[in-house]
């Protein structure tokens, strides 16, 4: 699990390079000014590629924070 979190932090860091690790763990679409639609698409693409998961269009609008993405990945990687 720790490894998954570490890889996810790396994914976030690639899209939001100005955030430190702590800020990434608390990141949400409201708290990160650069988290606009293009960043969302890039972030989800990086996550899909890193974890080999396919995020469906219906789930996309819910992935608005680090913890939401983490939960999603945990659930789908496990399943």
């Amino acid at each position, binding site marked *: 699990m720790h490894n998954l979190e570490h890889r996810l932090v*790396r*994914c976030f860091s*690639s*899209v939001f*390079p100005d955030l430190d690790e702590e800020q990434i763990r608390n990141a949400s679409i409201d708290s990160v000014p650069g988290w606009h639609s*293009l960043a969302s*698409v*890039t972030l989800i*693409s*990086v996550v*899909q*590629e*890193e974890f080999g998961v*396919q995020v*469906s*269009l219906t789930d*996309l609008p819910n992935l608005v924070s680090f913890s939401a993405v983490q939960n999603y990945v945990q659930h789908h990687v496990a399943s």
Partner: protein
Amino acid sequence: MKLIDALAVIRRPLPENAPLLRVSLACGFTPLHLETFLTAGLRERSPVERVEVTTGLFGDLAGNIEGIRSADGDVLVAVIEWQDLDLRLGIRNLGGWRVAELPDIVKSAHRMLARLEKAILTAAASIPSYISVPTLPLPPLFTTPSQQASAYELELRQAVSSFAASLATHARIRILSASHLDEISPPAARFDIQSELSAGFPYQLSHASAVAELLAALIRNPSAKKGLITDLDETLWSGILGENGVDGISWHLDQQAHIHGLYQQFLASLASAGILTAVASKNDPALVQQAFEREDLLIDNQSLYPIDVHWGPKSESVRRILKTWNIAADSVVFIDDSPMELAEVTAVFPGMECLAFPKTDYQAFWQMLRRLRDAFGKAIVSEEDSIRLDSIRAASHLHHSSNGEGTSLDSFLQDAQASVAISFGKEKEDHRAFELINKTNQFNLNGKRLTESSWMAYLNDPTTFLMTVSYEDKYGALGKIAVLLGRMRGTAAIINYWVMSCRAFSRRIEHQCLSWLFQNFDLQEITFAYQPTDRNKPIQDFLASITTTPLTGDVRVLRIGFSGKCPSLFHQAKATVNA
């Protein structure tokens, strides 16, 4: 490359004064990750260059290309997909796939291809252009089952092929190879329908990465190798000449030696494109001469020079061949079937690419041919390429005949019936001049290279000039061998770039260049933007011979000083001046 790695590459720090490459990326879809991968691919290939990619409007590929101006970008990259030819060939627009509409879809695609061709040709007149033709599968709009090609589909593909073939003949247009792309990006795994519908980006990440990587390789391609040195026994032919005799060696299918025939055919192809090809063999020279008299050889001994045959170490042959060619070891590939010979040459020339001839492994042989084609690949074969080997032979003859400097050289040059043809003007399509600037190391004023876009920008500057020099004497033509780029300032000239092919050394052509400039434009001084490099000693020596000032930074040569130091010139000079 993975997207996460591409993002990391883009964020790598750059030197403060990193030059800028401005890429105009034209595509009809959202460029999204393609833009990221392309930027990263270019940064990987040119780590000290800043890359700025600009894109146009969604859904208007032709308009985006038509809107490109040379002031906006250094290169154009156009990525075409089927929906750019007609919206009904995509899935984001519901325009109808009825049978009755198919002829109109094809007709409309023809019209759009004509418009795109015109737009690309206009753009390519001022900036180099790199084109990717449709890479995605066509949607299932045809009535035939998937195993059967529809006539409409075939017509569409034929139209795209004709379009690409027509553009590929242009000197400043490069077409991305569809067959090479097929190898690294399987066609069935390219289309991302969800991404296309949600974000307007139709590529799977792996496909976007592959397309971008190939485009980056087209834009920033590595320098091609210049020469190939081959072994003979069990390499150029099957068998050992000393044991099997001239009639016992073979390269034909019925003797299970066909790959040696293919290899000969391949070397002949390289030689015909101006690649230097030579032989290094431990053998009996008389027997080798007899072997080369066999009429069924697919490469003649005129295409191989030098043929260095003796019983000493191979590295000695290689050293002599490099000296004759006057090129560096890292520009050459050495091929031999013997691991021991390869190791010996590698030990002496660690920068040389040494390949084992895989005489029993046909797949490895095929891969070797493909590797060689990549290593020696060139976009355009020029007239100079076809005479390169002859001119090296002539240079060798000259070297042996003149045998040094002074009176002996004077009488030799006087007898050579040499003529130089000087062209002074701005021929932007002069690919040979551009090539010389970018491949010449030894007689090179400062080692600076020019990209196609910076070449165009330099020549578009009204204060600059381009001077090229071709040479011919009784031993043969050398073709275009020198290029000077500079600026005129009243009675002074500034030379920013000056290169001369090493084949043209020892003929006083460099003196003739300056003499002509001084006289024709009544110049009183010429300043050279000189910088020493690891390899430009020949031009250092030349400049030192015509000036007394130390060679630090710009070098100024006065007419009066040059006149006193210029040796006798025997060329007949013909000049064409186009202001």
